[in-house]
């Protein structure tokens, strides 16, 4: 049944997460300004919070489904701060790839590590079929020899291992690309620097270099079987993981946008600007009118993201919806945060407040995990019943 309300249990979970997120926000500015310092794994307040705050009940069949709650959780934690957590938990994009493409033995072996995912290279971003990092099998030692460079690797510093895309045969295009797991500390695997960014500066985005880096043959995700597949198991596997990660990145950006809206609402109230949802253009201030429009964009985006997650929970295909929510949220968070700055003026760009930071942080939403343009390509192909070759 179509319903947009939270159950009591849902609400308790939301309240719990919001209380935790609010503590994290206190550290937001510091780790933005001091990006060379790693954000703490555990905040000083964590122990007291966990001791004093009773855990909310777990949701049951009568409550909102786990994928939708995951998205709500992502929204709320990012509403606190993009990076800072009371206690950071493992799990990166690489973990999703391992679950999707790894053999049961591989999942067992590496499932507990924090895994980053390295696809992008200096010369290839949105078109990963152009990956040029190479993997060559040395039959004498039964090892893969990896050479190449990866950039923009999320959680690249904290990660204990990485899932990388490398090509066995560049001339084979996307069919030649496979996923490999490389553990930190493997000789020939270097992490030269943390990237310097517009926003999400506390996040440890890294660059990786592989020079004659040797890994066991069994580190090929999906095992030897995946080599012979004409269509790339590695490629498909990762594209599949994007069905949940796209809504999650949308949710993360929306958390920042919600923080921006909350701050702007508070400031407007303090300035005595009334927001009246019934008022027309004559009796409403331009600031309030503009604010309502931003709220509407936020709500449209939030619901569309939750819808993509709800479908996943129902076990229904959500490829289009994932791209729809990602494309929508990418534009929405840009419009919302920049709109809030316009409403608040100089206060919006002052580093004494967090609005300017949220604006910088959320700008990545429309870029990573497939730019807005890539999402529109996917959606247009779906609408027009076109293949990748039909519409480029």
């Amino acid at each position, binding site marked *: *049944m*179509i319903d947009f*309300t939270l159950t009591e249990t849902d609400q308790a979970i939301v309240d719990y997460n919001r209380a935790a997120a609010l503590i994290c926000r206190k550290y937001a500015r510091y780790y933005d300004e001091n990006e060379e310092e790693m954000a703490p794994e555990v905040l000083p307040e964590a122990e007291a919070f966990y001791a004093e705050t009773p855990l909310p009940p777990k949701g049951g069949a009568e409550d909102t489904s786990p994928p939708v709650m995951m998205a709500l959780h992502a929204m709320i934690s990012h509403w606190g701060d993009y990076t800072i957590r009371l206690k950071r938990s493992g799990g990166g994009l690489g973990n999703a790839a391992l679950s999707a493409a790894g053999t049961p033995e591989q999942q067992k072996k590496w499932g507990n590590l924090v895994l980053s995912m390295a696809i992008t290279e200096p010369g290839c971003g949105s078109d990963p079929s152009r990956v040029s990092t190479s993997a060559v099998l040395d039959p004498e030692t039964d090892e893969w020899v990896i050479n190449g460079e990866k950039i923009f690797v999320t959680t690249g510093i904290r990660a204990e291992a990485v899932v990388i895309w490398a090509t066995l045969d560049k001339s084979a295009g996307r069919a030649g690309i496979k996923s490999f797991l490389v553990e930190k500390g493997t000789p020939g695997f270097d992490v030269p620097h943390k990237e310097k960014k517009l926003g999400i500066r506390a996040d440890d985005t890294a660059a990786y270099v592989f020079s004659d880096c040797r890994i066991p043959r069994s580190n090929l995700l999906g095992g030897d079987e995946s080599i012979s597949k004409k269509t790339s198991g590695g490629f498909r596997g990762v594209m599949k993981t994007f069905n949940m990660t796209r809504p999650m990145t949308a949710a993360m950006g929306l958390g920042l946008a919600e923080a921006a809206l909350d701050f702007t609402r508070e400031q407007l109230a303090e300035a005595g600007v009334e927001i009246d949802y*019934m008022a027309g253009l004559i009796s409403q201030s331009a600031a309030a009118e503009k604010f309502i429009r931003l709220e509407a964009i936020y709500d449209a*985006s939030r619901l569309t993201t939750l819808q993509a997650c709800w479908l996943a929970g129902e076990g229904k295909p959500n490829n289009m919806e994932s791209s729809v929510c990602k494309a929508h949220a990418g534009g929405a968070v840009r419009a919302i945060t920049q709109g809030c700055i316009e409403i608040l003026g100089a206060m919006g760009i002052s580093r004494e407040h967090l609005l300017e930071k949220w604006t910088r942080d959320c700008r990545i939403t429309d870029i990573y995990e497939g730019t807005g343009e890539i999402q529109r390509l996917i959606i*247009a192909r779906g609408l027009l019943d076109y293949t990748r070759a039909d519409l480029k």
Partner: protein
Amino acid sequence: MISFGMSEEQEIVRDTLREFAADALRPAGRECDETSAIPDELLQSAWELGLTTTQIPEEYGGGGEERSLVTNSIVLEELAYGDAALALALVGPSQFANAILDHGSDEQKQKYLPLFCGENFHMASLAQLEPGPVGEPMRPRTMAEPKGEGWVVSGAKSFVVMGDRASHFLVFARNQDGVDAFIVARDAEGLTISEPELNMGLKGLATVGLELERVEVAAADRLGGEAGCNVACLINNSRVALGSVLLGLSRAVLDYCVPYSKDRVAFDEPISKKQSIAFRLAEMHIECEAMRNLVWQAASHLEKGLDATAQARFVRTYVNEKALWIADNGIQVLGGHGFIREHPVEMWFRHARTLSVLEGTAGI
């Protein structure tokens, strides 16, 4: 519990109405627009579907089905996918009937609901909009002064949907305490009904203006009786209804543009293979999904009796903006053909432009 899943019944309703809209409404839309008239047979055939009657309780002669605003929003989206003007006409009686059902006193329900349970199409209209620039739903210029036990209502109304055939009007007017809605019979003394207005879009849908010159209304004919009612709820309901119509219209534009762009060749390939066109279609789809979620959220909140003033306002703000963008860009995708009355896109653009200025003139 957050869920986007239609009930089985809602799916059946959607499929039935989708078929009806394709068979009966889409083919009729153009002629209704060109002739500024809707054939009685069409209204009657829709009446027989029970759009208004089904959810009126059995004690008043209705079908006694559970009242669901979400289901009604789905109905309206599907009807408007066929044609927006016809959709508003077909559910026209519901705006009045549902206002009585949701907010009327027992006496008002007894008196007015049976009117909508007969065998023939019966119309009564909301009179909310007023002549003059920029509507303010909670600040009507029409005034209601107390007189004895009852009221005296004076002012002017415009865009009263199908007021040419309405037996009654629900007139929004301001009194000393705020805004109320008053039931005024067609033959009330002091009430003048204008000839149908000349509008840009929704031309098949006759709209009229009302002049109220010291029209006397009995105390019992204030909506809600003694207690009055929160007319903001009627505005919210109407915002969701109009949003549903704009949503159906937007989907119609998109679904018309997709095959057109695949057929139309320029520079040796279908224009759909150009990103400037393909991305525009993608944008239309993204916004249709986003609009529907906003409409459903507001409908569902209203159905549960929650305060949905903000959510209904989001529908009005967002859906109006995006539906207009879609209708406008539908013309652009078709190029010159978008401007020609042989294709429906120019008509849908006029419909959208007209719908987006309406307020309080529909109900689900």
